[in-house]
C-alpha cells in the first residue's frame, strides 16, 4: 500500500497547480478548468483520508467518499452555471478573456 503522505502530497500538488492556473490564466474556460482541478485535488485528499480511517466491519465510515460525491455534484452545478456565464459573456463581449470584463470597478 502506498504511504498516504504521498497521496496527500499529490493532492496538495494538484491543488497548487490549480491555484496557479486560476491566478495566471486569463482564459475564463481554463480558469474554470483549474477550479475543477482544485476540487479534484480536494477529492483526492478526501478519499485518501477515508482510506486511512475506513471504520470497522460493523461500523464502516464512508464520510470521505460521500463528500467526494457531493463535491462532484457541486462541481457539476458550478460548471453548468459557469459555462452559461461564459457563453453569455462571449455573446456580449465577444471574448472569454477575463481582462475584458473589468467594468465593475472604481
Amino acid at each position, binding site marked *: 500500500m502506498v504511504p498516504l503522505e504521498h497521496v496527500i502530497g499529490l493532492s496538495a500538488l494538484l491543488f497548487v497547480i490549480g*491555484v496557479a492556473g*486560476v*491566478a495566471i490564466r*486569463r482564459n475564463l474556460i481554463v480558469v474554470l478548468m483549474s477550479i475543477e482541478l482544485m476540487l479534484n485535488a480536494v477529492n483526492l485528499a478526501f478519499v485518501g483520508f477515508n482510506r486511512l480511517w475506513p471504520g470497522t466491519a460493523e461500523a464502516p465510515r464512508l464520510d470521505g467518499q460521500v463528500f467526494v460525491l457531493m463535491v462532484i455534484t457541486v462541481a457539476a452545478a458550478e460548471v453548468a452555471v459557469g459555462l452559461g456565464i461564459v457563453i453569455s459573456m462571449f455573446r456580449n463581449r465577444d471574448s472569454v478573456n*477575463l*481582462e475584458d*470584463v*473589468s*467594468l*465593475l*470597478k*472604481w
Partner: protein
Amino acid sequence: MTETHVLRWIVLLPLLAAIYHGLAIGLVRRSSDRRLVALISCGAVIGSFVLSCVALGKLVQIPRGPSRVLLDDVYTWIGAGVSSTRFSAEMGFQLDPLSTVMILVVTFVGSLIHVYSVAYMEDDQREDKGFQRFFCYLNLFMFSMLVLVLADNIVLMFLGWEGVGLCSYLLIGFWYTDRHNAFCGSKAFIVNRIGDFAFLVGIFLLFSALADAGSPVTSFREIAAAFGGIREATLAVPAWLPFGPEWPVVEVVAICFFIGACGKSAQLPLYVWLPDAMAGPTPVSALIHAATMVTAGVYMVCRLSFLYAAAPAASALVAWTGGLTALLAATIAIAQTDIKKVLAYSTVSQLGYMFLAAGCGGYSAAIFHLGTHAFFKALLFLGSGAVILAMHHEQDLRRMGGLKRLIPHTHRVFLVGVAAIAGLPGLSGFFSKDEILVWATHAPGGPWLYWMALGTAGLTAFYMVRLHCLAFYGECRATPSVREQIHEVGPVILWPLYGLAFFSIISGYVGLPQLWGDLLFGIDESDSLGRFLGPVLTRVDKGHLDHATELGMAGSAVAVAAAGAALAWWLTLRRPELPDRIAATFKGAYELLVNKYYVDEIYDALIVRPLVAVSDRVLFRVVDAGLVDGVMVNGTARGVRALAAHGLKYAQSGLAQTYVFFMIVGAAALVGYLVR
C-alpha cells in the same frame, strides 16, 4: 395559607376586557356598539367585585392569625440565578385582610364609577372611538390597581404601581386634542417617575440587603420573615453626607419607598401633579385621583408596616410630611374657585391625614380613613361631575349657586359627602378622622402634629362648606342661557351617587373605634377593622388614653369643624362681599393661596427650566446633534467614505484575478501559519 384560583380571575377579568377593547380599537375599523362596550367593561369590573366578595368569604373561613391568607401562584414571572443569588419574582397573588379591604374598596367603587361613566361619557362625541378607548383605559387601570394590591411580591407590586401610573397618564390626557390636558398628563407622569425611581431604588436596596443577609426573597411574607436579618444592616456612604458614614439600610429603604409613595399619593413635595390631574374626565378624577390610585402609597406603607415600624426616622418623616401636606393643601383649597380643584386639594390633604396616621404607627387607622375617604371623596367627585354635567361643563364656583332647587337629588347626596368629610359625628369621616387625631397625639416630635391635624380638620370643614354653599345655595350666578338648560342628571348617574352616599354614612361603623363602641353600643368587640387587619399590620403601641381624653379630643375636633363650617356659611351666604374685602386687605396672603404658594412656578424656575435648557443646549445641540450624529454616525460614514475614495477603491481593479490574488495571499498566509 390556602391555594385558590379565584384571585387570578379577579385580576384577569378587567385585563381581558381591556384586551378586547384594545383589539377592537386597533383592528376593527368602525367603532363598536356603545352598549356592548359598556356591558363588557362594567360586567368585567362587577364580576371581579363579586369574585372579591367570594374571596372574602373564603378568607373569613380561615381562623384569624398570620396564616389567614389566600395564595394564588400563577407562574414564575422573573427567575434568575441559583440558590444564594436566586432572584425570582412569582406572578403570584396573595389575599390577606389588608388587600381584602383594598380590593373590596377598589372593585366596589370601581364598579359604581364604571356605571356612572357610561352615562357621563355618553355625550362625549369628540372622538369616534373615544368611548371604547375610555373604557379600555379604565379596565386597564382596574387590572393594574388589583395587581398592585393583590401582588404577593414587591416586584409584581411595582408592576401594578407603574401600570396605574400609566393609566392615570392616559386618562388625564384622555382629551389629548386639548393641549393643556396632554400637558397635565405628562406632568403627572413625569412627577410620578421621580417617585417611582426612588421606589425602584428602594426595591434594589432591599433585595441586595436581603441577599447579603443570605435570604434573597421578594415576596412580602418572606421579606417579613427574613426582615430580622437586615434590621441592623448598614449602608456605607461618603462621610460628608449627613448622618454618614453609615446609614441604616432600613431607614434608607423606608425613605426611598416613601418618596415613591409621595409621588403616587401626592405628598409634599410631589403633590403638584394631582390638581392638574383634574383635567381628565370627572369619573377618572373620582376613581383614580381620589378613591384608589392615590391611596396606593398609603397601602404600600401599611403593607410594609414592619419595615416602617423598624425605621423611626422614616416614620417621623412620613408623619411630618403627611401633616404638613394636609395643612398646606387645606389652606390652598380655601382659595380655589374651580370645584374640582377644591376637591383635588382636599384629596391631597386627606391623603396627608392618612400618612400622618401611618407615620405615627396607626396603620389600621390609615387604612380605615383610606376606605371611608374612598367612599365620600368618590361621592363628592361624582357629585361634582353631576353638577358639571348639569351646568354643561361649567366648573367655576363663581358661576354656580342656587342649584339646590334645580338639581335636588345631586344636592342631597353632595350634602352627605360634605358632612362626611367635614366630620359630622356619626358619619364615616368623623370616626376615621377621630382615629387619626388620636394617633396624632403621640406623634414623634410632640403635639405639633396634633394641632396641625386639628387645624386641618377645621379648614377641611371650612372649604367643603364653602364649596357646598357656593354651589347650591344663594342665588344662581350662571348666565341666563345656561340657567334654562340646567337639568337633573339621569338615574344611571344618580344611583351610584346614592350607593356611595349610603356607604359614606355607614362605612364608619366598620372600624368603629373602641371608645365609640363602648359608649354608643356598649359592645366591647368594636374596632373590628383594626382586629381584622391586626395580623397583617405591625402593631405599634399607642399607650392608653382614657375615654375622657378621647372624648375631649373628639369634641374639640367637632368644635373646630363646626366653627369652620359656620364661618364658611356666614362668609359665603350672609356676607358674600366680605371675602373680597378680606382678600383685598390680606392681598399678599390671598395671592399666595390663590397661586398655590407659587409651588408650580418655583419648580418651574428651579427644576424644569434648567433641565429643559440643559437638555436643549447641551444634550441635544452638543451631545446628540454634535457628538453622536455629527462625529460618531456621520463622522464614521464620512471617514469611511474618504478612506474608500482615496485609497481602498483602487483595490477593486475589476480584474477577477487580482481578487483571486488577494485570496491566495490570505490562503498562503494561513497555510504558512498552520504549517510552521
